[in-house]
């Protein structure tokens, strides 16, 4: 599962509104927007708070602990830059924050909905990093 990737993955290609997110990932941080006015978290990135319409925002670095909302194994067509057992998952990290990522170190048949997971980062080369998730054991209050 942690086999080296034979071909480079399609690298993230940040849009203007999402550059802060990928800059965070490159330093092993998951940053999302928090409205400067009302404090709501939001993802995917957007320039305006849908609740209070403030355009000012800060970034908040998330702990990277979340739960599996959904998961799949794309089988066909085979993409040579991904290992055959690659699991794509939707990870819920906080209210209003759901990311697409990969779920690693677990077999497809052992994944359960709402399974607790934690983030880790892999190297894509040329200074680029990428967030991945793996199962975590539940801690009290986690």
């Amino acid at each position, binding site marked *: 599962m942690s086999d080296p990737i034979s071909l480079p993955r399609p*690298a993230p290609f940040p849009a203007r509104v999402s550059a802060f997110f990928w800059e965070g990932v490159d330093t092993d941080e998951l940053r999302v927007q928090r409205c400067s006015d009302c404090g709501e978290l939001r*993802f995917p990135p957007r320039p305006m708070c849908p609740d209070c319409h403030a355009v000012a925002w800060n970034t908040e670095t998330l702990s990277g602990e979340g739960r599996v909302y*959904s998961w799949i194994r*794309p089988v066909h*067509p085979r993409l040579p*830059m991904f290992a055959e057992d690659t699991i*794509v998952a939707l990870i819920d990290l906080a209210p209003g924050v759901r990311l*697409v990522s990969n779920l690693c170190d677990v077999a497809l048949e052992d994944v359960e909905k709402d399974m607790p997971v934690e983030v880790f980062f892999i190297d894509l080369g040329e200074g680029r990093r990428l967030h991945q998730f793996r199962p975590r054991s539940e801690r009290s209050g986690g």
Partner: protein
Amino acid sequence: MADPREAAIVGIGQTEFSKNSGRPELQLACEAILAALDDAGLSPADVDGMTTFTLDNNEDVDLVRALGIENLRFSSRVPHGGGGSTGTLAHAMAAVSSGLANVVVAWRAMNERSEQRFGVGHTVSNASSPGTGTGFLEWSMPFGAATPAAWTALGAQRYMQEYGVSNEDLGAVSVILRQNAATNPAAWFFEKPITLADHQASRWIVEPVFRLFDCCQESDGGVAVVVTRADRARDLAQLPVRIRHATQAVPMGIETVTDFYREDLTRMESGEFAARELYERTGVGADDIQVAMLYDHFTISVYWQLEAFGFCGRGEARDYIADGHLDLAGRTPLSPNGGLIGEAYIHGMNNITEAVRQIRGTAANPVADVENVLVASGMSAAILSRS
């Protein structure tokens, strides 16, 4: 008596549905449009409006030039890819009812198998097509989620987990649609029905959600419909089919296909909004609909729309299907043409033409006494009725 300003479908046309048309997409579009105008008893000289939806490679200017149309007073392109296919009826309706145009042609023509396949996967992470409603692919590509099947499966898997639905349960939809296609000579899968065992033997496309037979086809072909006002429709060649209402739905948080961010992916909120709008506007309810043309790019989409449009409650689609309610002899037959899985994937437009044939009584698999047909394509929907 219908309002004279109400819109009606007065002509339908199509090319053959194949895997290699052997001719340019623009020619497919021209052929389908001419056939639809001929069906209506009209000619390109009568056309003053056009509409299609995103991902069609044909431009209105090229169609105007190729067909010899003098001038378009109205031209639009509905967003959301196939999700917007029924939205063409909303645009055409708005145009003719308001007087922006008299005769609007809605078209779709693609070589979606022999030229531009949707199923082969994207590998460029900055790919983004304005107007499709599909989110910036930077969020999917780096992780190997590269196809509509993979994107759709992420929502489907949560539904299946929540309600204990298996891939075999999804297969029941394919079996119905392939059975319908088997007796529709226009269908690519004419005389090729499948059993649930065949479905289960087809290879995984996205494990554990979609097998090959959960996916619609990739098809070459063109389809067109002609819309005008009810008062004008009476004098034309065919029994007019009333557009009772047509609507689009773009609820907060939705994306087309890459629809990951709504809180609850087990429900199709766009369908729920569209259903409310259609039912309130027309007074027609789920019980009054004799044929359900539900967009079936993947089998799960039928589940979601059955629940969104109130044919059954949430989480009940599997049992509703198992009880036979979608069969040709059932309560509300599903896509008697075979849908996008069985007939062809003309991106939803071939489900509109089938609705018209069911109301005219000219379908290959006619349902008895059809008054109202629901055509739903995720982010747009319409109720069509007998005049």
